[in-house]
């Protein structure tokens, strides 16, 4: 095994930074969901990398739980986007003003 733990962590940091950039800049709701996906994936990569190098199987177990919960989250998120699209005929989050609490 030639790859060190730190290489995987650095890739995960890059993915996290790109995801945060997408969340901060994009106004398209679906693109913001892409950003969330990238952040979740970087977290999973971190979990599995640490679980490989420590070594402990619980990291992989937690990663599996996290993937399953992310699937549920995306399903609800996309349903919310569809409902908002039906109300506003747009997926630009700047138009979702009256959703403000």
């Amino acid at each position: 095994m030639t790859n060190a733990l730190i290489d995987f962590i650095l890739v995960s940091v890059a993915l996290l930074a790109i995801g945060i950039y997408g969340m901060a800049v994009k106004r398209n709701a679906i693109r913001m969901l892409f950003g969330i996906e990238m952040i979740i994936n970087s977290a999973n990569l971190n979990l599995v990398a640490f679980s490989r190098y420590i070594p402990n199987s619980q990291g992989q177990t937690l990663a599996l739980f996290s993937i399953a919960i992310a699937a549920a989250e995306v399903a609800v998120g996309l349903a919310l986007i569809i409902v908002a699209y039906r109300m506003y005929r747009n997926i630009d989050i700047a138009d979702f003003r009256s959703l403000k609490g």
Partner: protein
Amino acid sequence: MVDSVFLALSVITIGSAIVALEVRSLIYGSIALMITLSGVAGFFLLLDAPFVAMFQLSVYVGSIAVLILFTVMLVRRELIFNKVEDKHRRYAGIGLMLALMLGIGTIIIGSGLKTMDTNSPMIDYKKIGEDFLTYYSPALIVMALILASSITGAMTLARREDVIDDQRAD
């Protein structure tokens, strides 16, 4: 040192992550996101976690990406290619991204993680199955309930009740 497979995988993963956010069409964006998720699955394979890699492929690439593609198809055509964003906000976002990468990167490179290069044996994935069925079985049941309820909630949210009869006919 890293090997060439790792290097290629990281270039593909990070490159397609940027493409997914920056390409004009949302359809190509979701396909690029699919490539990013497959790249992460490749990293899981490199980390000797084949079970997690296959789970990632089937859940993310198989279902979530298809779900996103269907949602993209449901919105109007102009919105798919429409790209409105604030220029100042964009520069600030790029600055934030670079600051995060450099900041966390230097912290990690300076930390003691560098020395963790053990040749520890690979984790047997039978152990994960055992864990799931013994210690984590209540959590597994709760997770199944959460998944079921969230999918039901999503379907209830997205269902429309105001469909007129002539629309239903076709």
